[in-house]
């Protein structure tokens, strides 16, 4: 931990402003990513992970608003930058890949135009130069016959090719951080594997940091270095990927793993997490998971457990009173 992280997020909070007062959507999230590292943020739909990604880019529109915290990219406080300078961060230093390649591309522009545009904008390149680089990018992300493909419209491409175009757009200006929001969810499984391979290769070649947002633990195991588990707007556990899969600490993480089919456990009935994910307006006080938690303690309903290193695995940080209590009882 000697060199400063590329991205350092502290206590980031995004709220939905309603007539009944602000409702938290992202609630005091802190995380950091080093150069060339992949951090996966895992959670169910509605836990605020996509909102976290948009907040990093300051792309939240009213009635949503960033209520506090700090986002530092290479030392620059992004939340304090004027909008014009923030625009030159988006797409150049931080790029984003969206979930649906169907909808993330503009249907009325050719895919080439959409890549050219970013290069022209950020690098002040000429149209011809931009087109040359676009073709090279298409080649790099593995689009066959790139010189012809650049003039096609999104609907003429398959889902896998479209996602490659989306990647090419994101990579166009050589960002140091790539935010990928469910990059493979909309693809079928074989294409998914290809895109993940591509992502891993590009990351290694370009020494780019990746913030991968997903609900798919399989994808996490495949590409991530570290994992942050998010539940109801907060990070409940953060650990290196091996540690998390070997020894999940938070009751929520454990429940997630139990609800996944596995080869070792055989054909038994899968366990569902009881209850449902509450909507942001109904998030309970204290630990947000306590109403659904089998290990809940009295203080869980009133106090918010802080993220603390876990005694059993020093590299894991977990926000759970039950773990803290177990740590205190355990013989040192």
């Amino acid at each position, binding site marked *: 931990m000697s060199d400063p992280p590329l991205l350092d997020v502290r206590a980031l909070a995004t709220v939905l402003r309603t007539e009944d007062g602000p409702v938290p959507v992202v609630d005091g999230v802190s995380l950091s990513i080093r150069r060339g590292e992949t951090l996966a943020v895992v959670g169910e739909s509605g836990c605020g992970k996509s909102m976290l990604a948009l907040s990093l880019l300051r792309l939240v529109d009213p009635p949503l608003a960033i209520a506090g915290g700090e986002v530092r990219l290479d030392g620059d406080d992004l939340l304090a930058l004027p909008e014009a300078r923030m*625009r030159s961060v*988006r797409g150049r230093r931080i790029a984003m890949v969206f979930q649906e390649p169907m*909808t*993330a*591309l*503009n249907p009325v522009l050719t895919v080439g135009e959409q890549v050219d545009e*970013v290069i022209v904008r950020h690098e002040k390149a000429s149209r011809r130069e931009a087109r040359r680089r676009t073709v090279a990018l298409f080649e790099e992300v593995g689009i066959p016959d790139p010189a012809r493909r650049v003039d096609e419209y999104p609907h003429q491409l398959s889902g896998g090719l479209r996602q490659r175009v*989306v990647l090419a757009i994101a990579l166009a200006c050589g960002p140091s951080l790539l935010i990928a929001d469910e990059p493979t969810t909309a693809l079928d499984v074989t294409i998914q594997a290809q895109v993940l391979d591509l992502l891993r290769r590009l990351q290694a070649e370009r020494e780019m940091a990746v913030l991968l947002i997903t609900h798919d633990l399989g994808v996490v195991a495949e590409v991530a270095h570290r994992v942050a588990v998010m539940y109801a707007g907060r990070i409940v556990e953060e650990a290196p990927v091996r540690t998390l899969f070997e020894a999940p600490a938070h009751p929520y993480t454990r429940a997630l793993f139990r609800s996944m089919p596995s080869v070792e456990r055989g054909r038994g009935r899968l366990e569902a997490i009881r209850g449902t994910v509450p909507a942001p307006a109904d998030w309970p006080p204290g630990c947000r998971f306590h109403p659904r938690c089998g290990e809940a303690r009295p203080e869980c309903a009133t106090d918010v457990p802080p993220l603390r290193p876990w005694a059993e695995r020093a590299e894991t940080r977990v926000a759970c009173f039950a773990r803290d209590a177990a740590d205190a009882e355990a013989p040192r």
Partner: protein
Amino acid sequence: MSDLRRRVVGDRVVAAAASVVLLLVALAILAPAIASERPFLLHVPEAAGSTGFGALPTGWSTPWGTGLFDVRAFPSIVDRAFNGLLVLLPAAVLGFALARRRRPSVAAVWVASAVGLGLFAAHSEPVRRYEAKVEQLRAKGHEVTAVFAPIRYSMDAPDVLATQQPPSAAHLLGTDTAGRDVLTRLLFGVRISLSIGLVAVSLYVSIGVLLGALAGALRGRVDRWIVRAIEVVSCFPTFLLVMVLIALVRERSIFHVMVVLGVTGWPAVARLVRAEFLSQASRDYALAARALGLPSARVIFRHVLPNCLAPVLVVATFGIAGAILVESGLAFLGLGDPGVASWGQVLREGRATRQLHLILAPGLLIFVTVTMMNLLAEGLRDALDPKLHREVRGT
């Protein structure tokens, strides 16, 4: 039900409607080539020449070509504009064909402008009623060469000796109270109707798209004010509003009608574009464009707006039909431009003189045009609506 609809109003009906509309456009452009009192080619021997005002010029001349841009022959700018198309389109095609190898578009522009300028600068004789004069000379035994268009009348030359005639071989649809050939007037009326539709609709589509995009993109206070304005204007019954506004104009011309239609028609377009904008702006590609650091103006106009225009195309096509209908209604009520040969004016003549053919012919034309435009618009709407496709295929 929808299957039935697909069979009845299939692509063939839409294709037929589109061809009728195209035919109307062709008629509008070709009108003077079909009906003109000025011969394409005229030769009057020196011996037959007289020097009086309005006499035929002696020697070879081309009265038709030189008259195309003559204010005396075509007082309305609408006609001269269509004549411009009539000259420029073939000239452009010719230029394109001549220089297919070397920069054809440049050659096309050169040939077109040369021909256009030549005709524009051409000197034309202040002659009317060519046919009668040619006949006179021939009766005197002179050898006169004259090549006329199929119909030898102009749309506005009165003939006091032949007023209110019923349909005959000379006048297929008869003549009106001033003795003008009704068929010719209806033919030139295509130009008026189409240009009313096009100009009025372009005007209100521009206003509507601009205001709708502003409201949808800026939201907040701008949005609230624009929506209020839409509500206020759409409170008035459109035809009444148009009538009141047009009644305020002292010397009405066809352009006043266009402008009044243009400034009253925009609310529907603005509402549509605004709604479309709100839905499109929340799509991923709009967010993605912002996430790439593109400035908001670029996101709005290059990314979001083009995606909002498909339904506007449908509304505009319906709007052309509507505008033609409103203009005919205004002309019929005496609120049109009496100086132009619009279908409504002919219809008004027919009602005033109680002549059946003067009522039926323009009425039928208006009906056919409006129906075909609406069919075309419906076809466009169905073609642009993916939901409908699924529904039709599904059931």
